[in-house]
């Protein structure tokens, strides 16, 4: 390209961008886009982006919708920064986020100040919505979520361990985060209630790599635990599985964990050692959900060539976006306050089935499924 041509092109581009601006309305996607949790966040971003593209293509709104991604790095401090950034952008009408409960809890306080609605596609700690009842909550209720909470998931796992697997003595490990510890406590409560025994309980730190000493203690515990329940995310879960198997803690010694560990990335950390791990998920595996068939196909079509797999929360992200679209339509325009009110009245049937919210903002669609990791094809078929 000659210099003159380059100038001509630049002039055209400049002229185009200076024209009358088309009105855009943003849906913020506040999730971890980098770091260990980045794979999950990127999946959510792709899901929301796809929902937005579909809405634009169908000309659902008289303006252009944009999915605006914000990276909270799975870090509560960063989540608050990002939340402040979001509320200061007047074009943002609602937020899909955050991924981690630890991030969603402080960020929600910021959104309440705006106020702008936040629908979490993945944060499962009860506190995320329950904090709106506390005395230090200022502002209106703006938190919603399309995923069932840990009290549903943790106690489901306990029943599964006790009834389906016949375990009576379990060791409890958690990563000390609101998500991991919350899940662990719910598990413990239900498991003891059923007549089981928690023989030991330990916290580990996120970022720790070496659990051999801890697992050796579990292995030589005199009260012979029959399995581990771990409340935490896939990095630590993967390392625990790998080191557990290296120490000879194999079947029928069970490893049970929650949805934070149920992602194909666990096979990158643990390799074949992840095989046979029981991982509960909220909802039904998206591949087995008849209502999500088109979504799964569209997603694969839209993102082929990016080398990206469908991540476990993507359909929740997609659904959160759909709930927001419907609310904007009913509100008659992208008005933050009206949209909050309309989301509250949601009765939407889509990918997840029927979604309605209770007074706290939690979805009433509370299904939990137990899956089992299978290393050879990186899959998680459901088990009964």
């Amino acid at each position: 390209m000659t210099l003159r041509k380059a100038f001509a092109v630049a002039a055209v581009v400049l002229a185009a961008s200076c024209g009358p601006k088309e009105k855009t309305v943003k849906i913020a996607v506040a999730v971890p886009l980098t770091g260990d949790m980045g794979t999950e966040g990127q999946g959510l971003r792709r899901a929301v982006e796809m929902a937005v593209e579909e809405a634009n293509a169908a000309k659902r709104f008289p303006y252009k919708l944009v999915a605006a991604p914000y990276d909270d790095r799975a870090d509560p401090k960063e989540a608050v920064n990002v939340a402040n950034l979001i509320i200061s952008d007047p074009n943002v009408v609602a937020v899909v986020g955050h991924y981690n409960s630890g991030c969603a809890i402080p960020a929600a306080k910021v959104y309440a100040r705006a106020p702008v609605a936040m629908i979490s596609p993945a944060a499962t700690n009860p506190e995320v919505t329950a904090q709106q009842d506390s005395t230090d909550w200022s502002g209106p209720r703006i938190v919603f979520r399309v995923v069932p909470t840990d009290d549903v998931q943790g106690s489901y796992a306990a029943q599964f361990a006790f009834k389906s697997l016949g375990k009576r003595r379990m060791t409890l490990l958690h990563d000390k985060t609101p998500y991991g510890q919350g899940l662990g406590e719910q598990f413990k409560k239900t498991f003891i209630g059923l007549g089981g025994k928690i023989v030991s309980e330990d916290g580990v730190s996120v970022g720790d790599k070496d659990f051999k000493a801890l697992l050796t203690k579990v292995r030589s515990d005199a009260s012979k635990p029959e399995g581990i329940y771990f409340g935490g995310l896939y990095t630590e879960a993967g390392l625990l599985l790998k080191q557990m198997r290296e120490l000879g803690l194999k079947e029928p010694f069970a490893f049970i964990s929650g949805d934070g560990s149920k992602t194909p990335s666990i096979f990158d950390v643990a390799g074949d050692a992840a095989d046979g791990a029981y991982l509960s998920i909220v909802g039904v595996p998206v591949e087995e959900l008849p209502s999500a068939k088109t979504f799964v196909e569209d997603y694969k079509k839209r993102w082929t060539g990016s080398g990206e797999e469908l991540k476990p929360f993507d359909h929740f992200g997609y659904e959160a976006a759909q709930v927001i679209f419907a609310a904007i339509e009913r509100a008659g325009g992208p008005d933050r306050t009206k949209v909050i009110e309309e989301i509250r009245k949601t009765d939407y049937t889509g990918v997840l089935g029927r979604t309605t919210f209770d007074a706290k903002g939690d979805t009433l669609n509370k299904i939990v499924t137990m899956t089992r990791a299978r290393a050879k094809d990186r899959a998680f078929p459901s088990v009964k």
Partner: protein
Amino acid sequence: MLIQQIVNGLTLGAIYSLIALGYTLVYGILTMINFAHSEVLMLGAFMALGLAALLPAVFGTGLVGLAGMFILSMAGAGLINVIIERLAYRPLRHISRLAPLISAIGVSIILQNGVFLWVSTQSLRFPEPVVIDQVQVFGATVSTLQIIILAAALILMGLLHFFVEHTKLGKAMRACSDDIQTAGLMGINSDYIIALTFFVGGALGGAAGVLYGMNYGSIKYNLGFLPGAKAFTAAVLGGIGNIRGAVLGGFILGFLEVLASGYIPNGAQWRDVIAFTVLIIVLLVRPSGLLGEKIAEKV
């Protein structure tokens, strides 16, 4: 259980010791803390990951492939350390003692973010170059990986000992460590010896990085930070500048962590607190570390 915990402690300690040696070698000769060492460790692991895809074609799999991966990653990490020294430390060496220290922190940040931006922001799976089996030894389950880690670490420490104590270059290194100016007057090319020290330290760090990747099965851009900080602690605990001290400190720290999380109820979340409390107590009693000699401050 005790035997199993000893095995765990030995593996952890071996990795800490190897890293600690890199800190101590550089400190011994320049009285400078190479904060970029943890990144050299990380780069060693990433080089091994890159090589793992290429090497089987050249060396085949099994122990030969493993040795090839080790040697090349060590050489690469050593060279990186030499380049860091040449570009970031040497020009500042005579200015002040603080300048190279800040420069080292800068290098560390640059390398970490470089990998973060250009390679991957996420955990990458580290391949298993050899088939890992478990063997039962006195009721403890020992994986062949742990044996490889311990053997590799001990061999490298042995080689280092031989090099420092029994070769001419090692003698020159010790001379520089004693008094770099006098060594220069005696005809030792101190710049060359310093570069060599960085190479050896970097190579050991690179080896530790490979072992680290093999042990935990996945690597990430920030993997160097935590073991780097722990190994630095180990070097101080043993007496920084002292080679035997670094090894001793590494193993002590490894055992402390294992004992804390293995024998104290709910110790896993307290293990760093316990390990560092012991460190503070040791330093209160012996400020120059366990094997460190009391030397007059160099001016």
